[in-house]
Structure formats: C-alpha cells, structure tokens
C-alpha cells in the first residue's frame, strides 16, 4: 500500500559522500522509502564548501536516478561549520516585528552582515509570555552565498530546493519518535564537526545550544589540540574528582606524558569529558531557569558516525542519566530494505522528516534559504518553476484570450466601419446628385423661362390699360423684350391717358410714346390720331411667365 503524504528528499553533501533519504507519511506512521549514497566527486569541496557545483550536482542527479526516487522536492543540509547558532535575547515584540528585531540584534552583535546573510529563528518556549519579559530566540544564520551554492546544486540536479536546514538540527529531529512527552529529555546531536543539544519537555523546546568544545569528543580525523593549549583542560583537571568526571578516565593523567598510542584515546576521552562538562553546565542552567520542571533524567544521542557509538556510555556515566542511542526511526518502505538504516543517513532522514504530517516533536524546522523573513526578498514557494510557468501560461492564455477577443471585436468593428464609410460615401453622393438634379432643374427652368415672354399676360395688361376712345391695331414683341404698340385714338388726351395707364402696368417698364400722327392722307380719317408706344417687358414678367 502506498504511504500517504508527499515525499521529500533529504540531502547531505560532504567532502566524502553524498547521502539522500526519502521519507513520507505522518509522525504516527512515518515511512522511509529509500536511502542511497555515493562518493563525492574529487576536489568538489574546499574547506567544506562546494566549489564544483556541476560535478556535485551530476553526482547527486545520478544518485537520485539510481535510487529510483520520483520525488522532486528536496531539503539540503547545511554543515555546522558553515552556519552560526546563537540564542538571542529580544524584547517581547509581536511576531510580525520579530524578524526585524532579530536582524538588528544580529547585525549589532556582528553575527551576520547587513547584506549577504540569511537567518531563520524559533522562539524558545517557557519565556516571554509576559509583555515586558524578554524572549529567548534560537537563531541560525549563514552566508547567503553559501546557501545558494547548495540550492544551486539541488536545482542543477533536477530537484526542487524547498529548504536548506542546519544539519545537526535535522539530526535532532530524528529523536522525535523516541521523546516521551511526560518527561524532560536531553537530545544530543554529534557529528564530525560539532555538537548541538536540545532540552525538550512535553511539547516545548526549552533549551538549544551548539557546544564549542575546542576539540571533538570522538574525533579520529582531526589532530586534537595540544592539551596544554586547550583552556578547558585545566578546568577538567580540577574537576577530575567531581561526579561528572568519567570514572574510566580518572586514572589517566591529563597533561602528563604518555605513550603515543594512548594519545588518541586520551584525546577522545578529553573530548568526551569536555562534552560532559558542557552538558552538565547546560543541565544546571536549565534546572536553574526552569525550576518548576522536573530534572532531566533521560537523554537521546544522535550520531551520524557509527564509530562514535561508545560515546553514549561515556556521557551516561559522566552525567548519571540514561542515555539512549537514537537509531533511524522508521519502518522502512518497500525499497529501503528490511534492516534498519545506517546511522550515516541520520542527517538526510532528519531533513526528509520535514515532510511528515501531524504533530511532531517540539523541534522547529529551519530554512536558511534566502527568503522574505530574513532578507525582505520575495521567494516563491515549492514547485516554483512549474508554478511560475503554469501561472505565466495561465495569464498568457487568459490575457491572450481576452486580447484576441478584443482584437476580433476590433476587427469586426473595423470591417463594419469600412462598410459604413462606403455606405456614407454612397449616400453622400446620392444626396448630392439628388440635390444637384433638383437645383439644376429649378435653375434650368428659371434660365430657359427667362428667354420667353408671357405674351398673353402682357396682352391682357395692355388691353386693360387701353381707355375708351383708343383702339389698338398691332402689338409686337421684339427681341430683347421690346414691346411696340400701334393704335388709333380719338384725341391726344386719350393717347395720354392710355400712356399713363400703361406706365402703371406691373409687367411693363420704360413706357414711352414713340410717335403720333394726324395726317390727312391717313386712312384713319382726319379725326383719328395714329400713335406708336414702346415699352420694355419687365424681367419679372418673364420670370413670372416661366414659373407659371
């Protein structure tokens, strides 16, 4: 049956070996899916810092491929020599301001630089509840450039780096399954470079500390410092008879000359003593600070080197409490093998246990990846590349769709506008033609009408103007609208009267008497006067005749 939960891969990179572990499930039912290791590439690290990122990433990618893991989210371990661990006392400020206060404190204490450092923190329990009470905060810090090297390796290996966590803290997480909530427990994580301890009680993390011993409690790799140069050795000499001194080591004369073969054992014992001394101090400090709590009576030791197993017994003897060696926790998954996993995988397993769901031990999960809380920079969450690409694609699809729809609409509007403009041109032309036709017709009628004369109207006007005693003989309209009238009258007064009447005619202008004649030779007789009147047909008469 497939375990529940999304698995993640814990990765430990050191100068000797690359180790991975894949874990999923919950704290009540954790499952180790697989562990795998491979030698680190030669010269890929310098002073514990990866320098050949591509080579390490290639080895990691090959290792993950060989292990058959399909998980992509990974947490990488930061070795203790590259991280700083401090307890910082801060005012009891709101959570939202805690990061700023801590950063200021770290910069003030010159633990980190203003820029280029990253940190994460967790508040220790049992203190700071009152508004005016200072809070103890566990802070882990590292150089941002270093952390990014590790994250780059993970990315280059085809994995998604979701966090970078201090190694020993991750190791302490593996004790989670063995911590009994009903008693105070001391958890000790030891690796080749450092020791970190935590005191947990119930669901509270009361104390956390990285021990600075000056030499390793069980180092086989480093040459121990000359005993007379180790300050704490002198103190150990005075504490030789006290209860936390190792009984098995009481016969060894510290600082005295001894056989060369015994020097290694002496160094080991010295380291163990120093560790026990520091542990006792930490226990005393906690006993003084948390007076309401039960004393620590049990401890858990987490190791990543199987050769350090005897350390458990030595610490137990020195402190007088029960020390249990923490073994990798979990029911192995189908591909992890039947036997319990090697102690070497403790850090990787501890890192991968971040994925476990449900209530776990009171140990915090740290992430020193450069992120908002430490740098103010915006960092995307897990699955960032895919999520960003998917989000971008979604935005492009939606925005592009809207844009294409708007473009289509604009295209339709443009086509409609072109058609409307063509129609407008057509209608404008039609209106102009129609208007011109009507106007032309009117003007043509006016022009042509003016070329003729309203003969009948003029004749009526003339007839009305002729008084009794006057008879018209001829009426002639010549070119240019000149009117000539000839007639006979009984006397001159009749002619003058006729002339006066004609002058009042609306359709005649320039009325004038051209001639009159009373000659004896005329056929009209001696009593009649022949006359001729000229006039000009008015332009208004011609227009009126045309318009009629």
């Amino acid at each position, binding site marked *: 049956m497939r375990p529940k939960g999304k698995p993640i891969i814990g990765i430990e990179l050191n100068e000797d070996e690359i180790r991975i572990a894949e874990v999923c499930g919950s704290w009540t039912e954790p499952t180790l899916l697989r562990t795998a290791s491979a030698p680190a590439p030669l010269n890929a690290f310098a002073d514990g810092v990866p320098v050949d990122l591509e080579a390490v990433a290639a080895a990691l990618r090959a290792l993950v491929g060989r292990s058959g893991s399909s998980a992509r989210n990974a947490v990488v371990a930061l070795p203790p020599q590259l991280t700083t661990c401090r307890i910082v006392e801060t005012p009891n400020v709101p959570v939202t301001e805690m990061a700023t206060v801590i950063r200021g404190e770290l910069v003030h204490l010159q633990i980190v630089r203003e820029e280029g450092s990253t940190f994460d923190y967790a508040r220790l329990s049992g203190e700071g509840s009152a508004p005016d009470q200072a809070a103890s905060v566990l802070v882990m810090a590292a150089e941002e*450039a270093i952390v*990014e*090297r590790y994250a*780059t390796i993970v*990315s280059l290996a085809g994995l998604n780096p979701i966090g970078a966590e201090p190694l020993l803290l991750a190791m302490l997480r593996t004790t989670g399954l063995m911590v009994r909530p009903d008693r105070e427990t001391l958890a000790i994580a030891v690796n080749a470079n450092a020791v970190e301890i935590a005191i947990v009680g119930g669901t509270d993390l009361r104390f956390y500390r990285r021990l600075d011993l000056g030499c390793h409690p069980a180092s086989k790799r480093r040459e121990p410092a000359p005993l007379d140069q180790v300050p704490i050795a002198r103190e150990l000499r005075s504490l030789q008879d006290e209860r936390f001194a190792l009984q098995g080591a009481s016969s060894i004369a510290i600082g005295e000359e001894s056989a060369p073969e015994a020097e290694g054992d002496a160094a080991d014992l010295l380291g163990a003593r120093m560790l026990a001394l520091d542990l006792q101090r930490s226990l005393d400090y906690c006993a003084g600070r948390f007076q309401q709590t039960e004393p620590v009576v049990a401890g858990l030791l987490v190791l990543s080197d199987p050769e350090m197993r005897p350390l458990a017994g030595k610490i137990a003897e020195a402190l007088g409490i029960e020390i249990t060696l923490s073994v990798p926790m979990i029911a192995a998954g189908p591909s992890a093998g039947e036997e319990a996993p090697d102690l070497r995988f403790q850090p990787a397993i501890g890192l991968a246990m971040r994925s476990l769901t449900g209530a776990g031990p009171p140990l915090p999960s740290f992430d020193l990846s*450069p992120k908002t809380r430490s740098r103010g920079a915006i*960092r*995307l969450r897990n699955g*960032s*590349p895919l999520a*960003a*690409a998917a*989000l*971008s694609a979604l*935005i*492009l699809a939606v*925005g592009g769709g*809207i*844009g294409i729809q*708007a*473009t289509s*609409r*604009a295209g339709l*509007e*443009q086509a*409609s*506008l072109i058609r*409307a*403009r063509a*129609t*407008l041109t057509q*209608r*404008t032309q*039609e*209106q102009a033609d*129609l*208007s011109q036709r*009507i106007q032309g*017709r009117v003007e*043509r*009628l006016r022009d*042509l*009408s003016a*070329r*003729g*004369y*309203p*003969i*009948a*109207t003029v*004749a*009526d006007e003339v007839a009305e103007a002729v008084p009794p005693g006057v008879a018209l*003989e*001829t*009426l*002639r*309209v010549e*070119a240019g609208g000149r009117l000539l009238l000839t007639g006979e009258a009984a006397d001159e007064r009749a002619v003058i009267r006729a002339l006066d009447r004609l002058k009042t005619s609306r359709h005649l202008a320039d009325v004038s008497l051209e001639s009159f004649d009373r000659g004896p030779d005329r056929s009209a007789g001696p009593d009649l006067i022949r006359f001729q009147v000229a006039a000009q047909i008015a332009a208004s008469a011609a227009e009126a005749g*045309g*318009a009629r």
Partner: protein
Amino acid sequence: MRSFRNFERVLFVLPVVCLTATALYAGIQAHRAQRLEASRRSVEAKIRALESEIAAYRALPAPTRVVSASPSPNEQAAFLRELRAGARRSGALITRWLVKKSAGAAQEIPQGQPAPIATELGVRGDFASVRRMLYALQRSPRLLNMTDAWWRRSEWPVTEAGLTLTRYVDAAPDGSGERK
C-alpha cells in the same frame, strides 16, 4: 550563485511580465475596438441623417412644369397633337407652322443643356380665342417660350397673331438630336 538568484527572480518576474504584457495587449485592443465602435456609430448617424434628407428630397411633389421632353422620334408629333388640341379648345385656328432653322445653334448649347427647337406659329381667330390660345401656350405644362410675337387686327372680329415658339428636348447622349 548569481544565476540561481536571477533564476528565482525570473520565476517571480515572469508571471508579472506576462500579466503586464497581456493586460497591455488586451487593453490596447479593447481601446481600439471602442474607438472603432464610436467611429462606426458616428458614421451610421451621418448615414441616417443623409437618408432622411434623401427621403425628404424624394418626397417633394413632382414639378408642375417640364423643361424638356425626351428626344424620341415621336416628340414632334406629340407636340403638334398637343398644339392642335389646344387650338381646338381655344377656338383658334393655326394658320402657320414653320420650323426655324438656326445655323450654329449646336455650338451655343452647353453640354448637358436641353436643345431648343424653334418654330414659327401663326394663329387666327377672334380676340378671345387667340387670347385663350396664347394662355394655353403660356401655361402649358411643358415649357414653351414665346418670342418675336405680334398680334394685329384683321377683318373684325378676326385677329391674327404670330410668334416664335421654342420648345426644348433633352440632349441626346451622343450629342445628336433634332436641333434645327
């Protein structure tokens, strides 16, 4: 290290760039569509106004006077028929009908203008008949221009009148026609 940091920045910036780009593109296109729609509505309003004006022109009453007739072969016969009918209704007698030839008339007619056809007309009858005949010509629905007119007494009650009657026909498309 820097490449890793840049990679994360790209992951954040990429959607923002996409959002900005698509918003810009969609916004420009939407604005363009709105502008085009406004232009189309404006043009359509102008079209409606023009169509209303055209409809008003077309609704105008038909003209009461016709300037010219179509240059068909039957035009002269139809005109004479109208003339004779008018004379009969007036009680006058047409005594003369002569088509006047005017040399070079074709050159005087502007392009597109109707072509004039002038005829000499003689009418005889009593004063009232001739008057009615002249009024009939003057008020004819077709424009008939009267020039060079004379009217004189004859044996009482007969009067005689003569005039040049000019009618107009539309210009033939090829410029030819009955221009005399």
